[in-house]
């Protein structure tokens, strides 16, 4: 469907390479797409959610006649064109009022998706205005045992984490800890996945708070954390779910060789807790050993017998030039 682009200059080549498969991937981009029946409430909801995904989000303005659960090809095309692997599709109908469909793609093909019906929404504009810098990494918390037990809720957890976590960083500036997204669901989730009765499932509460730290009198190092809600405030009801094809999911979960943790060879810890390593020294051909240049091997007079013991040490310091077969020597490393 998409014609294969041949880069005509260095700039377009760089852009194309940025979109290609990489060992360490880019931050996932998101799209907000409006359905043909998307209401104002849903549009506002999507705008609020997108504000925490900035700058990795693109908001579509036009309405599109799409039914994701029937045919997601249109959304797959948008994903490919915009290099976005997360899509939120908003729609409204009598049967499914104020619904957001969250879709994830793998290799520009639909991986998994689920519907969340908005039970109530309080917009960011309705809260006290507290600015959060764009692009800040949020703290995220999932509270509720159902997020561990129920596979659909595990999918929701995975999708939310993928969506909100932002850029991968190794060094965090402590001033950058500004807000927390709290996703909770009460209930133990002892409801069969296959019953199809989604009304029995608990609702998902989505809250966002700004963090304020206060100096603690009890402990100098750790501050007291206080929160203030900044919105948006959502209560979602999980609707239809389309799980990922297991083969595709297996492909998607593959870790490239470069990122797999490397096992350190030849280093062990012995029973005493000491770190012991094996150094492989090449085999010495004693026939070819240069003995003429070793002072310690010279025949000395009777009065110089005291220093004879030192002659042995010189063998250990010899630099081996031949390496026919490796010879092992154990050395303790501290």
């Amino acid at each position, binding site marked *: 469907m998409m014609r294969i682009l041949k880069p005509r200059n260095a700039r377009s080549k760089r852009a194309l390479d940025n979109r*290609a*498969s*990489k*060992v360490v991937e*880019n931050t*996932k981009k998101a799209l907000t797409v409006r359905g043909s029946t998307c209401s104002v409430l849903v549009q506002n909801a999507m705008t609020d959610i997108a504000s925490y995904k900035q700058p990795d989000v693109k908001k579509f303005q036009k309405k599109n006649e799409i039914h994701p659960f029937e045919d997601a090809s249109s959304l797959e095309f948008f994903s490919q064109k915009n290099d976005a*692997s997360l899509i939120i599709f908003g729609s409204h109908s009598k049967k499914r009022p104020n619904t957001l469909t969250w879709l*994830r*793609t*793998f*290799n520009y093909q639909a*991986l998994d998706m689920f519907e969340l019906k908005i039970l109530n929404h309080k917009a960011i504009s309705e809260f006290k205005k507290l600015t959060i810098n764009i692009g800040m*990494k*949020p*703290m*995220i*918390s*999932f*509270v509720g*045992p159902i*997020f*561990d037990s129920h596979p659909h809720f595990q999918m929701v*957890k*995975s999708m939310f*984490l993928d969506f909100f*976590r932002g850029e*991968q960083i*190794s*060094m*965090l*500036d*402590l*001033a950058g*800890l500004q807000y*927390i997204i*709290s996703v*909770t669901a*009460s209930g*133990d989730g002892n409801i069969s996945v296959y019953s199809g009765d989604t009304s029995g499932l608990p609702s998902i*509460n989505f*809250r966002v*708070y700004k*963090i304020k730290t*206060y*100096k*603690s*009198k*009890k402990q100098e190092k*750790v*501050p*007291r*954390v*206080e*929160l203030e809600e900044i919105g948006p405030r959502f209560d979602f009801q999980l609707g239809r779910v389309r799980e*990922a094809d297991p083969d595709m*999911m297996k492909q*998607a*979960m*593959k870790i*490239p060789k470069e990122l797999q943790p490397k096992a350190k060879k030849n280093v062990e810890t012995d029973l005493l807790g000491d770190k012991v390593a094996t150094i492989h020294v090449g085999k010495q051909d004693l026939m070819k050993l240069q003995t003429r240049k070793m002072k310690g091997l010279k025949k000395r007079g009777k009065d110089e017998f005291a220093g004879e013991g030192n002659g042995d040490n010189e063998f250990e310091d010899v630099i081996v030039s031949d390496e026919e077969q490796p010879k092992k020597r154990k050395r303790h490393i501290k």
Partner: protein
Amino acid sequence: MSESMKIQSIGDRPVTVERAIPVTYDLGNLTMYDTNMMDSQIMSSTGEEEAKEAYLQSLARDSAQLLVNQILALPVVTGGRTGGDVNHNDGVFVKLPDPTTQLPREKPVPVPKPLTKWEKFAKQKGITPKARNTGNMVYDEAKGEWVKKWGYKGKNQEEPWLVEVDEKAESGGTAESENKGKGKNKSRK
């Protein structure tokens, strides 16, 4: 006055959080997973919006406190984000571990491209690319800055930092310039 009193009282509040089932963290993603049961009574009550919100906020506050405690326990890196980079020296930085939660990739793992004809030949023959000139600058560990290898004020021109005592010079010998052009007691004949 009331504001400062409020702050004072906040300082008295505990900084530790107790949880029946220990909480799991994914600090690489700044995330925590709490599988403790929530208070179903507060959650299921209809019409008690404020109480419900207050409860959710308290849960979130506890989560945030736990996360902050964990993050502050991580090793601190001084000297900015790149550990010594002049441009990012301000701010206290903490080294985050790798994320533990596995999330699906957006694109498949890259396949190594097939070697070109030249690359195959070079590999077989053992031809390596020529060592490129690294330029004039070299990092001086002692000074902690970049200096020139050669040229004006280059490193190769610096005076030796340790000079042995030359006894002839110390006792007040004649300068080189004085002896120039004199020759050595040449008798003119």
